[in-house]
């Protein structure tokens, strides 16, 4: 494969050089009617190539897309995205056609005269106002949804979780029975207190930290989760694509984001889009002789953070609320863990 590839490149370069030396002997430098004709027709061919590619991508790459939003808040994101995408799709198809068709249709001929058409107030008003109206609609929906997501003040009984980023791993701490997180600061990092929790804070004792070895973040379905993000060293970004959630983790400050999981991991695994995507992936993996893949939610780092940026991830598992409560009850509190030490 690779050898073939090198040969292909070598041949391409060889042919180019031969062609270039040949072409350089042509002395005509300004487009003639014949050139206009050829190039105009090439624009038509290019239109065919371009539209074929757009349609191919739109249809056959659909299976690559993320499945429907796994959070309740994300539903409107999907909606807004679909509306926007259809709109820009229509505009794209019309405008690209005009851009490539006009060079063919109006390709220059000696006998032709261009139309002296310098201004049209009416036309310009139309195409200032038309995009304005479209934008007003998109902006209104977008801003409504933005406030909907970002305003966490009215969340009832949310589960508070701190997500802590460091080169190149994630840690998490649940707020415990009082549902309030104890203060954290890098100065308190010591031994197994890897997240730098201030244990003198009354809220800190009952906090529950995920085991640092192969941590899996469990979330209950149907309950609002409020994430508080901190970072220990450089900027990171907590990206949970299936939940349409992302927020930067900034050293020196606490950022937040919230959503309500809509499907458990098990439910998601049998969702039709996920099944289709998993099938494709597993065919590829089988060819390479790798283990089959099973869908899982994932938290990944999406802000350049150093050499192993590409492998900074944590598994997320969404379960029914009862299962979650049982698991949550079994976890030792931070106070207990540190006391044992």
């Amino acid at each position, binding site marked *: 494969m690779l050898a073939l590839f090198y040969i292909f*490149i070598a041949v391409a370069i060889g042919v*180019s050089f031969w062609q270039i030396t040949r*072409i350089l002997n*042509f002395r*005509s430098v*300004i*487009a003639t009617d014949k050139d206009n004709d050829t*190039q*105009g027709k090439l624009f038509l061919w*290019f239109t065919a190539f371009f539209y074929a590619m*757009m349609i191919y991508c739109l249809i056959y790459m659909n299976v690559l*897309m*993320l499945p429907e939003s796994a959070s309740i808040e*994300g539903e409107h*994101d999907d909606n*807004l995205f679909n509306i926007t995408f259809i709109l*820009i799709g229509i505009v*794209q198809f019309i*405008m*690209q056609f*005009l*851009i*490539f068709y*006009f060079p063919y249709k109006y*390709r*220059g001929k000696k006998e032709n*005269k*261009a*139309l*002296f058409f*310098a*201004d049209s107030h009416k036309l*310009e008003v139309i*195409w200032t106002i038309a*995009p304005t109206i479209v934008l007003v609609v998109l*902006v209104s929906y*977008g*801003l409504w*949804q933005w406030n909907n997501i970002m305003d966490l003040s009215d969340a009832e009984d949310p589960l508070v979780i701190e997500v802590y980023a460091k080169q190149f791993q994630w840690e998490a701490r649940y707020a415990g029975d009082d549902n309030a997180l104890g203060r954290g600061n890098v*100065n308190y*990092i010591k031994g197994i207190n890897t997240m730098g929790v201030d244990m003198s804070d009354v809220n800190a004792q009952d906090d529950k930290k995920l085991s640092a070895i192969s941590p899996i973040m469990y979330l209950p379905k149907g309950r609002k989760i409020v994430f508080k993000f901190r970072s220990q*060293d*450089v*900027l990171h970004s907590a990206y949970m694509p299936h939940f*349409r959630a*992302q927020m*930067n983790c*900034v050293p*020196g400050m606490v950022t937040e984001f919230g959503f309500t999981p809509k499907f458990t991991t098990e439910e998601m695994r049998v969702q039709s889009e996920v099944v289709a*995507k998993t099938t494709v*992936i597993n065919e590829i*993996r089988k060819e390479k002789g790798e283990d089959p893949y099973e869908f899982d939610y*994932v938290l990944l*780092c999406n802000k*350049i953070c*150093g*050499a192993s*940026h*590409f*492998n900074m991830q944590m598994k997320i598992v969404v379960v029914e609320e009862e299962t979650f409560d049982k698991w949550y009850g079994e976890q030792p509190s931070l106070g207990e863990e540190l006391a044992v030490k």
Partner: protein
Amino acid sequence: MSDHHHKETFVTKYIFSQDHKMISKQFLVTGIFMGIIGVFMSMIFRLQIAWPEKSFTIIEAFLGTHQTDGVMDPDMYLALVTIHGTIMVFFVLTAGLSGTFSNLLIPLQIGARDMASGFLNMISYWLFFISSVIMVISLFVEAGPASAGWTIYPPLSALPQAIPGSGLGMTLWLVSMAIFVGSSLIGSLNYIVTIFNLRTKGMNMTRLPLTMWAFFVTAIIGVVSFPVLLSAVLLLIFDRSFGTSFYLSDIFISGEVLHYQGGSPVLFEHLFWFLGHPEVYIVLLPALGITSEIIATNSRKPIFGYRAMIGSIMAIAFLSTIVWGHHMFISGMNPFLGSVFTFTTLLIAIPSAVKAFNYITTLWKGNLQLNPAMLFSIGLVSTFVTGGLTGLVLGDSALDINVHDTYFVVAHFHLVMGVSAILGMFAGVYHWFPKMYGRMMNKTLGYWHFWFTMIAAYGVFFPMHFIGLAGLPRRYYTNTNFPMFDDVADVNVVITLFAILGGLAQLIFLANFFISIYRGKKATQNPWKSNTLEWTTPVEHLHGNWPGKIPEVHRWAYDYSKVDENGEYIHGEDFVLQTTPLKDGEDPS
């Protein structure tokens, strides 16, 4: 200034020249050289993306100690994407594009003998040259060049413990950029002053070709925003070297707590993007200006909506300075600010749409002369629309959450500012090559260059949107650690193949460019039958541009195919030089 030739030595003519035409060529050749480095880097890291951790002889040959058996190190991958971005945005598309054509065209198109200050103009080029040299030197630093992304967000860029490239490599990057800002500011001030003061008799602001308007407004945005980058860079230098805490706070790294207290990386993001976003338009507006001129000339039609075009350039310029926050929706800044920036960002779509519609209307019912420059200009309109439309997704804060920093963004900005600006730059080179070198570029090679470039550009960046929508983050050394991205691997191979095609296509341009300088056909005075003043100067360069008096201007730049009541060309031909006086009873357009 007088118009006769001064005695020129080799040094004053070719090296420390104060002639704007020579300086413009110096900018172009330096820009092309940096462009070769930048594009080559992208080829190399595309190999790694398509065939992760596969061994390549070319990687072994070029990356020295930063590879093992032909596989690049993760740090080097980040360094390559960082320097690729830096070089393409600043050195090729800012200095190479704006520096070349502002210098060449401003005096020629407004009817001036030279820039307001030839000396400062020379300084501007040499500062750019020095900054290029420092940037290239930084590639050879032992720990590797800067690798925190072209946006160099601290703390990553401030702490050598976090990534090796943040040592000497980053220091050189910062020094190089500080000098670059100096070059850019001196250049921009010169352009502004020249356009304000040195227009020839009759050249009102409303008779300026749109290229002039674009360069003028670009220079203003540059003067407004580049100093902010300089301050961001200076504060970062202080944090790195003198222990201040402008951007750093509460950091624990390599087993110890650092002393920094009270700073915020978000401050850096604000300062950086206050330049960073206008920079997009600093790159794009000159390309759009060039395109306006070329499309009108080659359509043999006046540009449609001249005043609306000026209005939209100014609207874009103004809005560009108040939208920077859309790069920071999820940076942790107040969500209310996010709402404001969403609003201003989507506003910018209106003047952009007006420009696109006006270009298309200019083509309508024209008599299109499909010269290579014209093809590149049409290509620009196409990529500008494709890339611009996805801006509606990214500018909407709610949607940005999930595509932020994915390949969707990479596809968007490459099309709308990268490819568009490069196509504009090529258009400019093909169109004004006769003005620069007195010879013509080869037409057939120009056609080949265009079609390969166009197919490659869309082949690379159109599918890239979709792997972004699959959630694939940018700047990942490899995706193999995430089985959920296994199905995009094939797409990445296709993208890389198109990228290589696109890279090789540029060899056609290089061959055409350098051979034509020496062997191209001798140019005539006005090969494209254009209206603007630069085509009234003699083909052979002279310091001072016009022998004898500077011509006087009597009309705007777009009297193409102007006919009388009987449908005959008023002046006998389908173009009318700006220097031609109005006939009796002729309507001034």
